[in-house]
């Protein structure tokens, strides 16, 4: 470690590279292991949010739907902070005008945008008002072929 590295570390400007290595690996392995094509994953995220939004108003900005992996089990984890519940569910396919005006399609849910928090941290962060799908709830089967048309997962 150089003196400059050390000072940066001391000032909290820089994470040790070992920590970065761990986080990057966890993310890439979650994807490697699930064998899900990123496009389909993205579409699935959008559809999940659409369904949830019919029942509750969620805080779009802080929503997070991602793959996590622990003990070689890959899980789809959704952390969706709830603003308020709807008295009646919206009809299927209804346009959703959430607070910020941006539709679910505009969500920043790229795999790169995440920092690789683990399941416990996610659970703790959203403990009060979140819809949380834990590892037991939704194991992702790696059955999609990369060439499948998007219609493959439509209801």
């Amino acid at each position, binding site marked *: *470690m150089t003196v400059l590295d050390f000072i940066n*570390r001391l000032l909290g400007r820089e994470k040790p590279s*070992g920590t970065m290595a*761990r986080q990057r*690996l966890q993310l890439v392995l979650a994807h*490697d*292991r699930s064998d899900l094509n990123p496009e389909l994953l993205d579409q699935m995220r959008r559809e999940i949010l659409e369904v949830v939004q019919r029942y509750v108003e969620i805080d779009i900005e802080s929503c997070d739907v991602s793959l996590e992996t622990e*003990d070689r089990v890959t899980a789809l984890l959704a952390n969706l902070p709830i603003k308020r519940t709807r008295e009646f569910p919206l009809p299927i396919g209804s346009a959703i005008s959430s607070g910020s005006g941006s539709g679910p399609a505009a969500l920043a849910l790229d795999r790169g945008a995440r920092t690789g928090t683990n399941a416990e941290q996610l659970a703790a962060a959203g403990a009060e008002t979140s819809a949380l799908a834990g590892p037991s709830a939704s194991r992702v089967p790696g059955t999609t072929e990369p060439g499948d048309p998007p219609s493959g997962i439509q209801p």
Partner: protein
Amino acid sequence: MGKTTLTANLGIALARLGKTVAVLDADFGLRNLDLLLGLENRIIYTAQEVLATTCRLDQALVKHKQQPNLALLPAGNPRMLEWLTPEDMQTITGLLAERSDYVLIDAPAGIEQGFKNAAAAAREAIVITTPEVSAVRDADRVIGLLATMDVKPVQLVLNRVRPKMMANQEMLSVDDVTDILALPLLGLVQEDERVIVSTNRGEPLTLEDNPSPAGQAYLNIASRLCGEEIPLIDPSKKRHGLRARLINKLRKTTGLF
């Protein structure tokens, strides 16, 4: 990375523990096990002739001079890759298993057919990797493949560990790798210049009576395979002396370095 070095050292170490060992070079493309064991000049026949039944197994096996409990079945011509089947590998391994306590198969890198052939003949596996992102990712692929082939148990050896870099968190830690790969740890081998010297000479480190850190690590792996309980010490957490203890304390309280 470090498969062939592990196979050679583990073979010698098990032989020293009184086991009969056969080592099989299944890396037909890039055969090296003969060189690392210092047996390259004594090869007459190979696995190829054994399979073709143009020679008997004991004619092809090359016994180690200092450790006659260990015998090498050399890899044949690289073109063997074109016709060798998983069943062929099972045949050879079966023959070797009849006459040995342990059969160690030195697998080729990657997850192609050569690796699958080697895995098809294995009952259990040792995955060896270095604590680097690319190597760990590759190891994860291999572990996934082994699971589909029903090879188990699979144990992990972490190679080329640099205690100082690990202590500085400039490298994946031992816990990071075992957590991520979710495998039991069989051994920790430090980065050690003596490995290169021993390769130059064709004399595995485990032949020595007072082996270097890596040599001792290979001996420990052999003992653990034989059921002995030898504690695994994470070298990045092991520090001696007052100064080191002070540094450790500072590290713990500040979590900075």
